[in-house]
């Protein structure tokens, strides 16, 4: 796939119907044999989620039945309230939100600056440093996990949200993504601005970034998802219940409420809501972000 193809293929394209096969069809087929394939496929993908939601509305008794109760007697919103009471769920939620937003903003700001520098500015050691940055993309987290833990401990951030935020404020992925994108913008725009007297910072903020909406949105959305869903690093650095993020909190919740399946489902559902909402609102950026990951490979 050429770089250009990916730029053209926004997530929206992947969500729209495509032209037919070669054989000219009769326009939109109302019933096509493909439904027989698509429907089971979609069901399989959706059932675990749906089942989770259904269970989250059941009573404890209803969950302890076999065959399972497929339609709950009533919609028990109570479950959701119970979760909030029986665990510092609201706290976990706010922690996760805070960390995620901080990391997203950090990435947007720092990766824009660095991405622009690597894309357009000539400075001593630029190419070597960029290669180093790229190299870190290849390294799996487990390799750096232990020393990073030690560094964070040195900084006194263990068991604070700072441990989750600081190391992730800028990532190689964002730098790479934005650098590649900036390079596709016509350089004449920036040259014209320079002739007009703008400073580099001004060019970045007034010309380059406004044109970079798609790339920034993609980075924001993907970073949001990764940070929100991160489990291993919070597991390693956070101990107190009050400082936990949702993923970590869910595991302790499950430990404490093993047989309260209905509450566990409600808790899981609540933890997924923001991402689900974001996904539905910003589908095309998610999809674009994922398709771009493929390009990077």
């Amino acid at each position, binding site marked *: 796939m050429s770089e250009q193809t990916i730029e053209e293929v926004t997530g929206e394209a992947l969500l729209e119907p495509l032209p037919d096969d*070669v054989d000219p069809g009769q326009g*939109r087929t109302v019933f096509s044999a493909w439904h027989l394939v*698509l429907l089971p*496929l979609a069901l399989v993908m959706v059932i675990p*989620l749906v089942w989770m939601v259904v269970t989250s509305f059941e009573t404890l008794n209803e969950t302890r039945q076999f065959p399972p109760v497929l339609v709950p007697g009533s919609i028990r919103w109570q479950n959701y309230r119970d979760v909030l009471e029986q665990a510092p769920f609201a706290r976990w939620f706010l922690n996760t939100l805070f960390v995620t937003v901080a990391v997203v903003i950090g990435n947007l700001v720092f990766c824009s600056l660095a991405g622009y520098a690597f894309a357009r500015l000539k400075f001593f050691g630029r190419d070597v440093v960029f290669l180093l940055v790229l190299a870190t993309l290849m*390294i799996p987290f487990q390799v750096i996990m*232990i020393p990073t833990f030690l560094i964070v401990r040195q900084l006194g951030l263990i068991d604070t949200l700072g441990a989750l935020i600081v190391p992730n404020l800028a990532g190689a992925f964002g730098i790479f993504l934005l650098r590649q994108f900036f390079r596709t913008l016509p350089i004449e725009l920036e040259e014209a601005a320079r002739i007009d007297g703008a400073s580099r910072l001004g060019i970045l903020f007034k010309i380059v970034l406004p044109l970079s909406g798609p790339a920034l949105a993609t980075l924001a959305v993907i970073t949001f998802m990764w940070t929100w869903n991160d489990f291993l690093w919070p597991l390693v650095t956070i101990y107190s219940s009050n400082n936990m993020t949702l993923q970590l909190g869910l595991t302790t919740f499950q430990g404490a409420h093993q047989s309260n399946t209905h509450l566990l489902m409600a808790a899981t559902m609540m933890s997924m809501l923001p991402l689900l909402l974001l996904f539905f609102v910003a589908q095309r950026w998610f999809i674009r972000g994922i398709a771009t990951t*493929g390009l990077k*490979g």
Partner: protein
Amino acid sequence: MNARRILQSEHVVGWAFAFPAVLLIVVFGIVPIVWSALMSFQRTNLLSTPEWIGLDNYRALSKDPLFKTSAIHAVIYAALFVPLSVGGGLFAAIALNRRVVGIRFYRIAVFVPVVASTIATAIMFLWLFDPYFGLANWALEKVGLGPFGFFTSPNGALYSIVVMTVWGWIGFNAIIYLAALQGVPQELLEAASIDGAKSWSIFRNVTLPLLGPATLFLVVFTSINAIQLFDEVYFLTGGGPGTATYVPVFYLFQLAFQQGIAGYAAAIAYVLLIVIMILTAIQLWVGKRMVYYAS
């Protein structure tokens, strides 16, 4: 050469812009990489002073039965996970690449699981696969199979994890394949049809080869992910029952953060890294031989 000129020089500006991000990456990326390597030659428990022991950790690794077990599990897991999730992604992408009423909803349905975290997915499947009250056993019973222990079964736990993670990743792979499928120029398919190829032949001779780069990427990407399996094991099985689902990263985690044997853990991490680098090198090598981008 006054101060202002220097400050405005591209070198300074460039460094100023790049500095925050680069600093973060050096401190939390490069330094740990090097430190980890050093650590793998030490004996340390993360509290007292480390002790240099040369290659002892690596020697011990090669004889460690628990590591062997975890490595075998990683291989089995990858051998199942990679073909199933990549093949499944391709299958889903082909099905989703149709002009059919409601295709938007089908696509969303397939993509949504990508958003679910490993823990959320694990919880959903924990419930789905509940040995006593789970939907899965209920459905299996209807066709005369089961009941199964799934995550509690010594023989079935690893495979249950395979099923769960394939579910979680098909959407991601389908997106990549769908983008690749759309990258195949319509004209090529038309030319093949005029040349006399039937649907299957067009797919096999034109589409599939052009999906080569995407396939290669996905195989390597999912392999790397497979080797790094952790969250699900930690949460669902703790490596068990027994050591049925023991995997390298779980072992690593236990060693470093529960048993305080960090040097040894770092050695494991580096072995994993080397395996990953070999896989990536293969990608680059095969990729060079497969340069046929539709132009």
